[in-house]
C-alpha cells in the first residue's frame, strides 16, 4: 500500500486555520512496528494459504485426505490395478473363499504367493468345497500381462499391476455366485461409488448456490418462497424419495444414463442444506463493513458478489459440500443394494453388496460382505476430511 498520509499530530493546538499538511514521504507501514519475516508471510498470505496451514495442523484430516487420494487412484487405473476384470467369470470357482497371501513356503522365502485350490462337489449340500493344496505354490506375478481389457473402454490392453500365476488363480477376497473376483469388483466398483458423490455434490452446489444466492441477495418474496421450499424438503425422509425417484428411471436406459440419473437424483434432494448455508452466509456477509464499503464506493452488485462476497463463503461452501459426499455415496450404495439403482454389468460397491442381500447366503459365504470395509473407510475419511476443512475454513478459529 503506497499512498499519502495526512499527519495531524504536528498541528499546533491554536485556533488558527491550519494548512492541510501532506507528508511527502511515501507511506511505510513498517515504520510503526517492524514485522518479522514470518509475520509478514502470515499477513500477506491469501485466504487459501491460511486455510491450508490450518488444515495441515489437523493431522487426522490430512491422513484421511491421503487415504482418499489412494482410493481415488483406483478410479482412473482400475483396469491396471485389478487382477481380473469385474465381469470375468471363472466357472470352476463359484463362491471360492479368499486365498490368503503367503510369503514363506516350508520355511523358505518365495515372495508373495498363494496356494492352489482343490475343489470337490459336496453332493449332500450341493455346493463346491474348496481346500488349499499345500503342494501347489502359485507365485503372484507383477507387471505382467493377464486378463485382456479395454482401457477406459478405448484401448485394448492386457497389462496388470499383478496377476495370478500362469494357469493359477488369485482370488484374494474370494469369488461370488458366478465366480467373479471380489477384489477386482471392488476396484472397478470404486469408479462409480467414489465419483457418484462428487458429481452429485457438484449438482447440489450449483443448485444450492443458485437458490441460496437468490434468497440471500434479493430477499423479500423470493427469500420467503425459497425458505419454505427448503423447509419442506428438509422435513422429507430422503431415502424413500430416492427410492421412488430411481424406480422412475426407465429400465431400458444403459448404465451410463442410469449413473447420471442417479447422481441427479442424489443432488436434487441434497441442495436445501447447502442453499440454507449459502443464504445465511450471504446475509451476514452483506452486512460486513467491507461489503458495505464496496457498495458505498459505488461497486455494482455483480462486482460486490463476485469480488467481495463469493471469496468470503466459497471455502465454507466447499467444506460443507464435502460433508455431504459420504451421504451420497451411501445413498447410491443403498439404492443399488435394493436393486433400484445400477445393475450389472455396471459395478459399484452397492451392486456388489446386492449379492449379500440374502442372509442365508451371507452366513455361508461371509466374504460377500467385503464391500462394507471400503465403504466404511471412505465414509469415515470423508467425515474427518470435511471436519478438518470446516475448521480450516472457519476464520474465527
Amino acid at each position, binding site marked *: 500500500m503506497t499512498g499519502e498520509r495526512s499527519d495531524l499530530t504536528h498541528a499546533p493546538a491554536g485556533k488558527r486555520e491550519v494548512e492541510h499538511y501532506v507528508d511527502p514521504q511515501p507511506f511505510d507501514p513498517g515504520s510503526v512496528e517492524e514485522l518479522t519475516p514470518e509475520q509478514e508471510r502470515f499477513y500477506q498470505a491469501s485466504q487459501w494459504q491460511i486455510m491450508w496451514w490450518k488444515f495441515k495442523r489437523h493431522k487426522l484430516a490430512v491422513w484421511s485426505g491421503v487415504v482418499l487420494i489412494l482410493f481415488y487412484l483406483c478410479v482412473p487405473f482400475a483396469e491396471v490395478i485389478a487382477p481380473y476384470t469385474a465381469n470375468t467369470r471363472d466357472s470352476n470357482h463359484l463362491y471360492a473363499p479368499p486365498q490368503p497371501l503367503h510369503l514363506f513356503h516350508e520355511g523358505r522365502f518365495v515372495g508373495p504367493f498363494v496356494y492352489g485350490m482343490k475343489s470337490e462337489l459336496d453332493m449332500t449340500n450341493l455346493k463346491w468345497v474348496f481346500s488349499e493344496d499345500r503342494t501347489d505354490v502359485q507365485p503372484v506375478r507383477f507387471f505382467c500381462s493377464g486378463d485382456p481389457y479395454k482401457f477406459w473402454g478405448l484401448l485394448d490392453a492386457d497389462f496388470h499391476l499383478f496377476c495370478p500365476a500362469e494357469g493359477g488363480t488369485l482370488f484374494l477376497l474370494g469369488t461370488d455366485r458366478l465366480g467373479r473376483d471380489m477384489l477386482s469388483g471392488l476396484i472397478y466398483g470404486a469408479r462409480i461409488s467414489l465419483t457418484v458423490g462428487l458429481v452429485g455434490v457438484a449438482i447440489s452446489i450449483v443448485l444450492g448456490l443458485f437458490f441460496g444466492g437468490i434468497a440471500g441477495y434479493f430477499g423479500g418474496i423470493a427469500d420467503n418462497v425459497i425458505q419454505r421450499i427448503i423447509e419442506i424438503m428438509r422435513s422429507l*425422509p430422503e431415502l424413500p424419495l430416492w*427410492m421412488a425417484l430411481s424406480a422412475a428411471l426407465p429400465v431400458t436406459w444403459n448404465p451410463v444414463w442410469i449413473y447420471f440419473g442417479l447422481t441427479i437424483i442424489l443432488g436434487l434432494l441434497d441442495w436445501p442444506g447447502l442453499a440454507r448455508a449459502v443464504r445465511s452466509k450471504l446475509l451476514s456477509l452483506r452486512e460486513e463493513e467491507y461489503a458495505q464499503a464496496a457498495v458505498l464506493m459505488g461497486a455494482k452488485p455483480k462486482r460486490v458478489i463476485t469480488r467481495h462476497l463469493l471469496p468470503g463463503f466459497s471455502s465454507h461452501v466447499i467444506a460443507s459440500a464435502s460433508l455431504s459426499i459420504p451421504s451420497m455415496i451411501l445413498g447410491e450404495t443403498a439404492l443399488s443394494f435394493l436393486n433400484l439403482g445400477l445393475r450389472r454389468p455396471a459395478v459399484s460397491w452397492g451392486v456388489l453388496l446386492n449379492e449379500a442381500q440374502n442372509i442365508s447366503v451371507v452366513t455361508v459365504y461371509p466374504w460377500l*460382505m467385503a464391500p462394507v470395509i471400503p465403504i466404511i473407510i471412505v465414509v469415515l475419511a470423508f467425515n474427518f476430511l470435511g471436519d478438518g476443512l470446516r475448521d480450516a475454513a472457519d476464520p474465527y478459529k
Partner: protein
Amino acid sequence: MLSYIIRRILLMIPTMLAISFLIFFIIELPAGDYITNQIAALRASGETASIAKLEFLRAEFALDRPFFERYLIWLGCWPGPNGFDGLIQGNWGWSFEFDRPVSEVVGPTLPLTIVLNFATILFVYIVSFPIGMYSATRQYSWGDYGFTFLGYIGLATPNFLLGLILLYLFNRWFGLSVGGLMAPEYIDQPWSVDKALSVLAHLIVPTIVIGTAGTAAMIRRLRANLLDELHKQYVTTGRAKGLTEGRLLYKYPLRMALNPFIADIGNLIPSLVSGSVIVSVVLNLPTVGPVLLSSLQSQDQFLAGFILLFVAVLTLIGMLVSDLLLAVLDPRIRLGGRATR
C-alpha cells in the same frame, strides 16, 4: 402456549399439501401407469379378452384424466368416478398388485412402523443423553475417547450394512434368527406372553441398527453444546459459591445444553424414518419398508404414494412433537416466535 400449538399445527397444512403434491408428482414420473403397462403386456402376448376389463379399471380409477385432475381426485378435492372419494374422505386408494384396497395391504404394517420409529427415537434419547453428559464432563478421558471413536464408527456405518453385519454375527454366535418380527415358531400362533417377548426381543436389534447413527450424532452435539456451556463464567461463579459439581451441572449448563439437544431430534427424524425403511427391508420386518420397495418395483402407484405420504406425515408429526417439547422447555419460543435452529 395454546395459541402456539394451534399456529404450529395450522402451519403444517400447507406443508402437507406441498408434500402430497410432490409425492404425487414423483409416483406419476414413470412412463405410463400400472394398467396401461398391463394392457401393453397383454397386447404383446396377443390376448385381448381381459383388455376391456382393464380399460374399465382405468376409467374406474380415473387414470385417463389429466394430471392435475388425477391429483385432486386422489386427495379427494375433486369428484372422481365415484364422487368425492380420496385421501381426505379416508379412501387410501387401490393396490393393483395385490388387487385389494391399500388400507388392507398396509394397514397391518402401520402400527409396527410407528412403534419401531418411536422406539428408535426413545433409544436415541436414552442412550445419547448420559453418554454425551459423561463425555463432556470427563473430556479427554479414556471413556470420552472410546465413545468418540465408537460414535465415528456408528456415524460412518450405513445402517443397512450394520443390520447385515449384526444379522451375520448373531446368526454365527447365537444361532438366532434376527430377521422378521418374531421367532418362526410363533408365526400364526395366538398371542401369548412368550410371543410378545419374542417380538420384543426381535425389536431390539432393528432399534439399535436404526438408532446408531442418530445416537452418534446426538452424542457429538450434546458434548459440544455442554462443553461450550461448561467454559462459561457463570459456571465458575457457581463453583466459587460452593455448589457441588453434580448440582452445578444439573442446575445451569445442562439446562442450557438441553435446548439444542431437543431441537436436533427434529432434524434427526427424517433420517431415522429413512433408516427404518431400508433396515426393515434388510431385516425383513413387516413395516411399510418392504411394501414400499415392492410397490415401487411394480409401479403400484397408489400404494407407493400412500406409503410415501404416510412416511412423510410420520416425519412431520415427529418434528411437531419435538417443537412442542421445545416450547414446553423454553419460554422464549412459546412466547416469541418459532424455534431458531
